[in-house]
């Protein structure tokens, strides 16, 4: 139990630092940045206290907001995906989720890919709509969320593959 808590605390701090110090300076093609800090929300243990989970997601988003001077857009996006995560989990993993036995390291690649993509796309859409906050710039919002999502999904999958432990 302690192991899980300390691992999540470490993940929180490391992901935020990597996000604000490295990844936000990429600006690929001028505006594309990956937002991999949401891996914390994606990989959070499934058997959890939902209230705590939502609150932690809010804290995560707010910390990133503090560093990036973006008001509360990251916090809003994080809280939303934390709230709807069970629905997406059910959609992506089906029966295994019902029995509460999903382990991210042992799931099929296809299922994991759908789960990651849906969460990341929703997060980015909320993030950029709130950040730009202008209906006349809807094309810009869609463009930014699509390209950043692709970048984020790729990086997240790579990271989970690299850091997954072999349990064989």
């Amino acid at each position, binding site marked *: 139990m302690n192991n899980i808590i300390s691992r999540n605390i470490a993940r929180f701090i490391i992901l935020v630092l990597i996000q604000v110090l490295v990844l936000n300076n990429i600006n690929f093609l001028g505006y594309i940045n990956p937002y991999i800090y949401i891996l914390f929300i994606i990989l959070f243990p499934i058997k959890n206290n939902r209230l705590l989970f*939502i*609150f932690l997601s809010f804290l995560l988003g707010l910390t990133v907001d503090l560093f990036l*001077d*973006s*008001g*509360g857009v990251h*916090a809003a996006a994080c809280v939303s995906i934390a709230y709807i995560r069970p629905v997406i989990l059910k959609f992506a993993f089906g029966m295994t989720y019902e029995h509460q036995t999903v382990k991210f390291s042992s799931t099929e690649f296809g299922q994991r890919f759908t789960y990651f993509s849906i969460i990341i796309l929703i997060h980015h859409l909320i993030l950029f709509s*709130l950040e*730009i906050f202008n209906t006349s710039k809807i094309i810009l919002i869609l463009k930014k969320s699509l390209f950043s999502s692709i970048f984020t999904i790729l990086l997240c999958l790579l990271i989970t593959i690299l850091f997954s432990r072999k349990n064989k």
Partner: protein
Amino acid sequence: MQQIINFIIRNKTFLLFLLLFTLSLFFTIQSHSYHKSKFINSANFLTGGIYEAVNNIGGYFNLRKENNTLLEENNKLKSILFNSENGALKQSYLSENTSNNYRLIPAQVYKNSYAAANNYLTINKGERDSIHQDFGVITSKGIIGIIDNTSKKYARVMSILNTNSRINVQLKKTDHFGTLTWDNESPENVTLIDVPKLAPVIVGDTIITGGRSTIFPKGIPVGKVVSFKLDETENYYNIKVKLFNDMTNVGHVYIIENLDAKEISILNNQDE
């Protein structure tokens, strides 16, 4: 009463979600209005400290480029000085204790962003160095933005690449002035609005700060005209301006304090 409590317990997840979501929306909306984003900004000791630590390491990599920029600026200033016929300028340069209206403070940029819709910079001077809200920030090439929040050691600058930024500028040739805004498109170009149709605008014209606000002195270069067209009302120009500054690459900046700002604002307030 019992039912209300039951309702709260049954929907506690949703209610918590709603509460936190509203809170973050509140922060977002607050950050859209100038001077109001007090709580969530990077000019506090935690974020400022972390950015400072990282910048201390990364700063070495840009030294050569920074040196070149300084050398260029020095060169420009020296050539202005030695070529000017005006003896007074030379006198004031050498004597150093003339009365002046503007105080300049050098600072270093710790964090810069240009990809978001509202961009801010964090710099390493704060209230301890008597930096306050509404001071202008420039580089040797052009303007950067306006200070909108300060802490003890750090200050946050609202970049001109911010959808909330409004800066008074004018054409260099004539005195037609307008407002500099950013339309969130590219970090190289900004938009100049409210220039009257009568103004003789040509592609390639230089835009400078107008000096009508108390923030920037008159005559700081901003950029040059790339293209222009009339807006919907057909009375004003919408001018696309290419910045002299490369906003994606800012190292050292100068903060400008207008020592007369207080007096001017008191005078203006008496009017109303």
